[in-house]
């Protein structure tokens, strides 16, 4: 499809339109793509960005993903938070103003169990209006238990949609099962989860084909599980301890990442677009004005990181270490209201 037609005539998602918007030729049209992305985002989401913070509860993991500092071969300090310790961390986030919290963990199936998550979320509900999880995949029955306990949203990334690459990076451990992971969001949606977070780890495979697969996945979910909303995240491989950067051939530039985000906004006007502190302040601040609808702030990616600095291993290096208050003031200067609460615990029994 002609890029001009894709940009100016078509609306919504179809694979041909997305391909045109992701093509090298489209790079000449980045400015009009950004203009259109901003216009759509402001109309659908208003002049607001929702803030959230991650709560890492364990960096133990049974998998051996070579791109992740939590992989089990990595010989570095490990930490698990008890419910009490996790709540202390969460208290700091609540005091900062956060009402949306994301529980993150390595695949620590011995410690971060369903009863652990149920108990933790029941406690967190007292202070937080929305709880999300980014943990290992579980069954529909387990998602039902988590949903009943107050967890309403999930993020899980396929890492790569390319089956050969997936097999190469996930040789052992439960994560080797591509389909079990792929179908995770369906199981969560069946259990009632509201927000379904998708993404791939940018750098493992070619980004254009991956974006096409991501869009296909999102399109399937929006049609079949029409009561849940999809959100796109953009985890881009960044330097981390004990991770060999030579392994990854498909790192992308800021311009390519921006093109990918604009293209997805144009194809999915109502999807949430999330940008974490993996990205640098300048990139985040500018993208916030164009298509981002949800941002993390002040994140620590090591368990216990909010109460004790630098004690255990981080999953990746933070590129934007500004405080939540600073992020709010930056957004304000760009005429964007930071929204702390956009959900209510009363939605769940």
């Amino acid at each position, binding site marked *: 499809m002609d890029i001009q037609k894709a940009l100016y005539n078509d609306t919504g998602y179809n694979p041909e339109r997305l391909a045109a918007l992701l093509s090298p030729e489209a790079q000449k049209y980045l400015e009009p793509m950004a203009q259109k992305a901003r216009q759509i985002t402001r109309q659908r989401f208003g002049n607001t960005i929702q803030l959230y913070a991650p709560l890492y509860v364990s960096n133990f993991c049974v998998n051996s993903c070579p791109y992740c500092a939590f992989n089990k071969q990595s010989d570095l300090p490990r930490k698990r938070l008890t419910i009490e310790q996790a709540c202390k961390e969460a208290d700091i986030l609540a005091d900062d103003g956060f009402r949306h919290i994301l529980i993150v963990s390595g695949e620590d199936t011995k410690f971060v169990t369903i009863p652990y998550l149920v108990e933790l979320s029941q406690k967190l509900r007292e202070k937080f209006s929305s709880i999300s999880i980014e943990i290992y995949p579980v069954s529909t029955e387990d998602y039902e238990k988590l949903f009943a306990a107050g967890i309403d949203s999930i993020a899980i990334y396929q890492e790569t949609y390319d089956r050969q690459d997936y097999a190469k990076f996930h040789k052992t451990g439960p994560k080797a099962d591509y389909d079990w992971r792929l179908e995770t969001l369906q199981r969560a949606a069946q259990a009632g989860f509201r927000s379904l977070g998708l993404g791939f780890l940018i750098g493992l495979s070619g980004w254009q084909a991956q974006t096409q697969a991501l869009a296909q996945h999102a399109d399937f979910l929006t049609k079949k599980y029409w009561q849940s909303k999809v959100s796109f995240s953009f985890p881009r491989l960044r330097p981390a301890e004990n991770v060999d950067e030579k392994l990854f051939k498909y790192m992308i530039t800021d311009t390519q990442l921006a093109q990918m985000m604009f293209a997805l906004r144009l194809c999915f006007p109502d999807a949430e677009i999330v940008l974490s502190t993996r990205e640098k302040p300048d990139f985040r601040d500018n993208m916030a004005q164009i298509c981002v609808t949800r941002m993390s702030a002040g994140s620590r990616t090591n368990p216990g990181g909010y109460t004790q600095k630098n004690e255990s291993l981080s999953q990746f290096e933070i590129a934007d270490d500004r405080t939540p208050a600073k992020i709010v003031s930056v957004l304000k200067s760009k005429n964007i*209201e930071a929204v702390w609460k956009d959900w209510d615990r009363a*939605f769940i029994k």
Partner: protein
Amino acid sequence: MDTKSNLSDLSAADDMKDKLIIAGKEFSSRLFIGTGKYASNKIMAQSIEASGTQMVTVALRRVDIQNPQDNMLAAIDRKKYLLLPNTSGARNADEAVRLARLARAATEINWLKLEVTPDPYYLLPDPVETLKAAEILVKEGFVVLPYINADPVLAKKLQDIGTATVMPLASPIGSNQGLKTKAAIEIIIAQATVPVVIDAGLGMPSHAAEAMEMGADAVLINTAIATAGDPVKMAEAFKKAVQAGREAFEAGSSGVKNQADASSPLTGFLRD
């Protein structure tokens, strides 16, 4: 049939031609305002002021309703504006009812804009669940203002169970497309025994004026003001449009002619 009570209903309906009365409360402004999507609470407050509205709706999901210090709630002067909590985000009757009860327990406000929208993309209201929730809430003493598709039969059923208004959408919420459901809204207005508030999709003051000219009792605007280049100015523009549309409705249209009168009539020879 009790003719007398019907007649008194009729005279009550006559009274309502000049004034907007919802659940016994009189409103001089026929413009209601939503509070989402603003770049700041300050701009929101200024836009509310400029609109001349007397009723402001707030999503319960967005505010900490139990906390009067909540930034958004604190920006709305409760002495000047009736706060209308809404159940935006509820996917079914159970969720909407639960949210409504908690809000009332925390605030003692028993007015409620009922929104049940299972589809998070177009936010179209679920007629079955909305009716179910409305039945429960009306029985529990809530003043219920239900957001509905422009469905005349559903509007009648809601009026029958005792909702305070019906609030049909003009087009999908936030879309700014204007009165795409005009034909169905005309029927709802013609059949209404409660005020009809056009709720979603009005993107420009001319859309609001058109709705008021048709005989809608009020309109509710959010996105078109909140995301305008100058929200305060747009709020003023909507205020004027709603007033103009209402005055035109009250004045009575002289009717639309499809063609000019011929200057040499073909039947001019018929003189007997």
